[in-house]
């Protein structure tokens, strides 16, 4: 019997190696695998490259991971946030490397890794600072830059529901980076609010087929996060 459900967060994160590239889903607080990030802090892997949209807020989650000196490099589109104190301090002190990637290019580079596409061209960043050290090429009279696939060793994703095959259903705006990140890592770990019986998730609602998922752990984020969909 296929069963990707593991009992604990520690089990979910077992084996993450030092030096890993870790893709971290979520946009703002929605779709963010916060419990898995805490688990990664516990787990201990270091010298990580973190790939996510922001660079952490306050002193918790990814910011805490950085503050503990466990992140060598961050690849993101928007290193600012409501409270980017940890990242900004480390960056000023030269203790963390930063690669800024336009948000759509970031998503597409990750998708490319998942889809077996080593490189593609985009007009995004052509003629700008972020495009100048890249291969530039003209197609049909317009300038494009070549972007490379961005693959993870590990992906941490969040979803609303899962089954034992690892099929994932997202809620609200919670998909965001999660589906492409789930595709693009050697080891994809999902934290979910609900485990459902196999066959009860609607085949057209499953945005991430279980084929992309290695481990699922159920978490209770509590509070508003647990209200049924559509109920404010």
């Amino acid at each position, binding site marked *: 019997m296929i069963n990707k459900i593991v009992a604990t967060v520690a089990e979910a994160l077992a084996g993450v190696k030092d030096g890993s590239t870790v893709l971290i889903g979520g*946009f703002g607080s929605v779709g963010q695998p916060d419990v898995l990030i805490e688990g990664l802090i516990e787990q201990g892997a270091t010298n990580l490259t973190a790939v996510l949209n922001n660079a952490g807020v306050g002193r918790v989650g990814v910011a805490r991971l950085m503050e503990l000196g466990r992140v060598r490099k961050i690849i993101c589109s928007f290193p600012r946030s409501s409270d980017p104190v940890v990242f900004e301090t480390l960056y000023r002190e030269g203790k963390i490397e930063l690669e800024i990637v336009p948000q*759509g290019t970031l*998503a597409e580079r990750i998708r490319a890794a998942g889809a077996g596409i080593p490189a593609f061209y985009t007009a995004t960043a052509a003629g700008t600072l972020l495009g100048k050290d890249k291969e530039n090429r003209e197609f049909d009279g317009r300038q494009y830059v070549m972007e490379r696939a961005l693959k993870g060793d590990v992906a941490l994703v969040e979803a609303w529901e899962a089954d034992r095959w690892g099929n994932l259903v997202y809620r609200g705006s919670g998909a965001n980076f999660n589906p492409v990140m789930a595709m693009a890592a050697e080891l994809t770990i999902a934290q979910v609010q609900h485990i459902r019986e196999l066959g009860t998730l609607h085949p057209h609602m499953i945005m991430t087929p279980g084929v992309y998922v290695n481990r699922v752990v159920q978490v209770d984020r509590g509070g508003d996060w647990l209200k049924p969909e559509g109920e404010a």
Partner: protein
Amino acid sequence: MKPFTRDQMAARLAADVPEGWCVNLGIGIPTMVANHVPPEREVIFQSENGVIGMGPAPAKGQEDPWLINAGKQLITLAKGASFVGHADSFAMIRGGHIDLCVLGGFEVAENGDLANWATSENDTAPAVGGAMDLAAGAKRLWVVMDHTTKDGRPKIVERCGYPLTGLGCVNRVYTNLAVLDVVPGKGFVVRDLAPGWSLAEVQAKSAATLHTN
């Protein structure tokens, strides 16, 4: 003689958005544009994080923590809304399916160049977000911004001094003093001036020629 307020700038821009357009609004004044589109005029608001069809802000007590926009504000869904992931959302943006994107700006140049993400080449950790994707991908890009910086330096310029967000991407600028079209091969063409302002006065606050058709 008073310049437009932020709200008036947003309202002025909103008046030019026709029914049926799919519109992406940047953070700040651009977000306020949605409040000024009358509900009977159907406009589809798209957000980079994969929401297509945002409704008005939620009433107090009706917030759903799973529904946010690209500015991380809580939102509601309009009837007809749908969700996609980030790759599909930016496919929509990059592929030219957004009729209009509205962004803020540091500078707009008469060749349509936009600078709105970094204030120097050595900016520590500038935050680009989705601005470059939107600038390169949207069918039309309208910028809404003050005509000058707080210390009076023109933001309407011949060539941008700050690092660019996109090349030749701006079609129109809504400032607190004027509405300017960016016409390829010509430059800024005045569509509108704020009430009580003369062309000469607005020209004096600009670092590029303002044409009148």
